[in-house]
Structures are given as structure tokens and as C-alpha cells.
């Protein structure tokens, strides 16, 4: 049996001085090539789980493994292995779109010519050809988020982590980016964890949906591919909503 690419085993996290756990006894696996959507209400512990996964937080109890490494203790072992798309674009304001896309590659010490070529290719792929020399302030919110998606894909990571990347965009832009993003994930065969508070988005994107309720407990799992008809999808939506809101 192959080892999962990402695994949480009995993970709990309580912040210093906090009365309650943000994450309590969380366990799940993600296999290579899966696109797992994590859905839950605000404050259910999704972002804490995300920060545990990226190695920005250390679990109070339990074990997190990403590609066989502890992301907090073996922080540098995961260099180049994963990339993150955040809720806000988090572009460096002093860099042009091209140099923002090339940022991850620069930190991985790829030669300048190579990283700029790759960055140009990804900007083009995401419909931003001609905007290479634009600074972030000259781009719209949707364009900036495209740049941040290009920045993540440019490092060719094994794992892509996305923290509500379309939630700050208008519905039309979000829909268009969501479709492009899903196409890119399928085309590149990346493993991805996609955090969202939108049930529709989770069903549209995920090959598996993990439904969280506080404190980051898995209330339900769903496999959208099994819901072929609109009626079944509606049932799945209702079940997910019930699981999210159950006390």
C-alpha cells in the first residue's frame, strides 16, 4: 500500500492562553493526485489546519506528515515540494507581475533566464500576456489573483495548497478562475488541498470533500464524482450543509 502524500494523525492545536482547541484530534490522509476540498464555516479551524500543513504552526499533539516530512520540524526539507495560493494575492508590491511569478523560482535558486521564461509561460497561460511589466497596483483583483496562481504553479510543486483563493473576488471572476484552476490541476496532475467556505465550490472542485466543524473535526466526507445528476448534487449539498451546522 502506498504511503499517503499528506497525513494528519491525532493532531490537536491549542494556542497559548486559549481556553479551547482550534483543532482537536484531527486525522485524515490525502493520496497523490487527489484534489481534496475542505469546507466549513468561518472559525471551524480550517485555517489553523492549513497553517499546520504549511509548517507555520506546530501541533500541540499529534503528527503531521507531508511527503514523509514533518512540515514544522523539517521546514526546509519541503523546499520546492509545495506551493500555496492564499485568500489574498499576497503579491510583493515592489515587483512586477513577471518578477512576482518568478519569486518562488528565485528562492529555489533557478537561473534567471529559466525562471523568467517559466514566469512568462505561466502568465500567458493565465491570460496575462502583455502584463509582465505591470506592478500589482496596476492590476485588477482578479488579475492579481491570477498572478498569485501563476506564482504557485511556476515552481512546479508536488502539492498545491489553496486557502479560499477566490473568496475575495466577484462571483463572475471567481467562477472563471475556478474553472481555469480546476483545468490546470487536472492537466498537471497535482495533489491539492483546497479550503473553502462555499459548498458549491467544494463540490465543483474536489475529487473528495472533507466537511469540517469546530474544532476542525471531520463531520463528513463526500465524493462529488458519485453525484452525477443535479438531484444527487443537491442532496449532497444538503448533507454537507447539515454536517457543517450540526452541533
Amino acid at each position, binding site marked *: 500500500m502506498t504511503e499517503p502524500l499528506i497525513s494528519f494523525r491525532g493532531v490537536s492545536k491549542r494556542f497559548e492562553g486559549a481556553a479551547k482547541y482550534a483543532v482537536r484530534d484531527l486525522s485524515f490522509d490525502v493520496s497523490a493526485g487527489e484534489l481534496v476540498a475542505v469546507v466549513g464555516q468561518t472559525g471551524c479551524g480550517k485555517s489553523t489546519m492549513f497553517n499546520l500543513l*504549511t509548517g*507555520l504552526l506546530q501541533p500541540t499533539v499529534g503528527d503531521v506528515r507531508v511527503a514523509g516530512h514533518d512540515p514544522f520540524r523539517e*521546514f*526546509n526539507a*519541503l*523546499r*520546492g515540494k*509545495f*506551493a*500555496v495560493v*492564499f485568500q*489574498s494575492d*499576497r503579491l*510583493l*508590491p*515592489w*515587483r512586477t507581475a513577471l518578477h512576482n511569478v518568478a*519569486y*518562488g523560482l*528565485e*528562492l*529555489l535558486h533557478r537561473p534567471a533566464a529559466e525562471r523568467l521564461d517559466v514566469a512568462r509561460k505561466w502568465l500567458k497561460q493565465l491570460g496575462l500576456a502583455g502584463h509582465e511589466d505591470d*506592478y*500589482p*497596483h*496596476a492590476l485588477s483583483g482578479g488579475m492579481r489573483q491570477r498572478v498569485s496562481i501563476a506564482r504557485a504553479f511556476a*515552481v512546479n510543486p508536488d502539492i498545491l*495548497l489553496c486557502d479560499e483563493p477566490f473568496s475575495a473576488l466577484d462571483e463572475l471572476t471567481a467562477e472563471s478562475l475556478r474553472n481555469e484552476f480546476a483545468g490546470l490541476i487536472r492537466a498537471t496532475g497535482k495533489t491539492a488541498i483546497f479550503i473553502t467556505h462555499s459548498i458549491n465550490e467544494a463540490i465543483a472542485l474536489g475529487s473528495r470533500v472533507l466537511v469540517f466543524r469546530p474544532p476542525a473535526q471531520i463531520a463528513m466526507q463526500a465524493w462529488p464524482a458519485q453525484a452525477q445528476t443535479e438531484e444527487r448534487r443537491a442532496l449532497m449539498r444538503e448533507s454537507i450543509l447539515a454536517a457543517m451546522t450540526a452541533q
Partner: protein
Amino acid sequence: MGRFAFKKETILGMAAVAIAWQIASMFLPAFLFPPLSAIAERFIEIFTSAQVLDAAATAGRILAGLLGAFILGALLAFIMVKSATMHRYLYPLLQFNQGIPALSWVVIAIIWFKTTEFRIWFIMVATSLPAFTFQIVDSYRTISKELLEMALSFRPSRYDLARTLIVPTVIPGILTAWKVNLGNSSRVVVVAELVGATGGVGYELLQTQQLFDMAGALAWTLTLVLFVLVTQQLITWTEDHLLRYRALSERGI
């Protein structure tokens, strides 16, 4: 439009002062209000004789002092942001330093050190260092947590993190500190040169005072002001280039 209006007003303001001065020179003794032509003559003489070396010496002392203060100030800032304990020790000391008048540093430097140049350099560093340190520490604290997390997600080395995130964030603060300290240092250097140097603008001002040479005093003062303005402009150009990414509103505040 805004820039042109500013330039026009600057020129008109300066012209009004010059005209008032010229009128005063017609009715008052020359040793109090020398005519503009006499001041201009002395000003040109500074730049066309060996006296230009005195102006250059002062400029060199200001820049050397500021450079020293910047390097040591940045080092202290680095220690303060790396260690909360050191921050707690150093912060009150720097605040205490800021309360010490430049003239006190002049007296201390004369008692402590023999070499004139080192005395002046010491005074310049002692008076400029806290502003550099405070500005860099404050700029470091403005580093966005969101951008830091984004950069960390790529697992950069410490050097790369400093080069690509920390330095660009603190640059505006450093440039502001240079601009503020430049004006302060031009005043301090004159005081330092007045009491110990055998050359420089401060020394020349002392000579003009002893000769009651108001035209010379004003010419030397203008020389120093000119140096400050030119250097300020160079810093502003550097700032405009380095911070060109900033969005400007088409409508002013």
C-alpha cells in the same frame, strides 16, 4: 501641475526675501545687510578658489558621519529586532542619547579624543545614530505578516528572505532617516567645526564672525544649504526610482 506650482512658489518666495534684503542693504550699514552683489561675489569666490576645499571638507564630514551612523545604527537595529531582551536594554539608552544636545557631544569629544577629524566624526555619529536605528526598527515592524507567510511558504534561506522581503520593506524608512539626518547633520557639523577644526564651513564661519564679514557668513551659509539641497535631491531621485512601484493617486490630498 502640482510640481510646477511648487517650483513657482519657491522661486517667488526666495525672490521676495532677496528683494527685501536688497532694499534693506540700501538703508542699513553694509556690515549688517551687505548688498546681494557682495554676497554673490563671495559665493562665487568660494567655488573658484582653494576655499572650495573647505566646502568639500564639510561635505565629506557630513557624509562620513552619516555613513558611520547608518552602518552602526543598522547594526543596532538588527540586534534590537533579533533580540527582545537587547531591545529592552538598548531602546532607553537611545532615547537618552536623543536628549543629549549636540554641543554636549562637542565638549565630550574634545575631552575624549585628540584627532580633530575623529572628534567631528564621533559627534556626527552620536547625534545621527538613534534616528537611523529607530527608523529601521520601526520599518522592520511594518513587514506584512501576510507577505512574510507567503515568502516562508517557499522555504527561503535567511539571506534570501532578507534580500527579497526585509530590505525592500525597510528601504523607505532608511531613505526617510537619511533625509532627516542630512538636515540635522549639516547644523551639527558646523557646531563641531566651530570649536575644533582648522578648515570647513564652520571654521570659515568663525573667521567671518571675527572679521564682521556678513557677506562671507551668508556665502558660506548658502554653500552649506546648497550642499544639503543637492544631496536631498539625490536622495529624492533615488527614492523615486526605488519606490516607483507605489501607486499614485491622480488627485492630490
